[in-house]
């Protein structure tokens, strides 16, 4: 089974600071998705990256897929309290029959 390691596990920062969350594996994934989960709710998809080296931006969030498709990062610029939540990366193990392998998640707390 392919594994995804996320770091850091927990991040507490002040409003306006920048941060980066990492998602690493020794295995190649056909795609990588980032989700955000609030307490008591299911994960909500933020972005999907499929091409090695791909960079996608979603307002203040920048997502990057590593060239070898083994790692990914999420960078948040000028974090706001509304960004608080659990951020999960999930890798698609194969192109068809998308069983997602999730990392353990990064809990982000942004203080005002």
């Amino acid at each position, binding site marked *: 089974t392919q594994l995804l390691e*996320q770091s850091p596990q927990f991040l507490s920062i002040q409003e306006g600071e920048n941060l980066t969350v990492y998602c690493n594996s020794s295995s190649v*994934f*056909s*795609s990588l*998705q980032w*989700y955000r989960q609030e307490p*008591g*709710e*299911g*994960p*909500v*998809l933020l972005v*999907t990256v*499929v091409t090695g080296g791909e960079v996608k931006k979603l307002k203040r969030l920048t997502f990057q897929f590593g060239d070898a498709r083994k790692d990914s990062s999420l960078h948040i610029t000028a974090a706001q309290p509304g960004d608080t939540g659990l951020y*999960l990366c*999930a890798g*698609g*193990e*194969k*192109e*068809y*029959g*998308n*069983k*997602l*392998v*999730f*990392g*353990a*998640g990064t809990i982000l707390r942004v203080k005002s």
Partner: protein
Amino acid sequence: GAGVSQSPRYKVAKRGQDVALRCDPISGHVSLFWYQQALGQGPEFLTYFQNEAQLDKSGLPSDRFFAERPEGSVSTLKIQRTQQEDSAVYLCASSSLVAYSNQPQHFGDGTRLSIL
């Protein structure tokens, strides 16, 4: 609503009892997934349906876990003779068309199962 609906939201059962968890996917979605999320962890894959066919059940932890989707829409996850280690949030997700890795999965809010 238009999203994935799961019921019940919370379920408390005594060890040894059987439980059934229901998932109503987004209308027309072909693919349906079940995940188990332990406290402080990311979701772990349990099983996958394409319409009524269960194509992957490699994540089911034991033969006490059983899932079905008889008419290709609503799905039920059944756990027999529950044990304390079964306590977790059970998430259901659906995806349109056939599940390719770049397609989004739409998650329900889960059922929180507590085994006493």
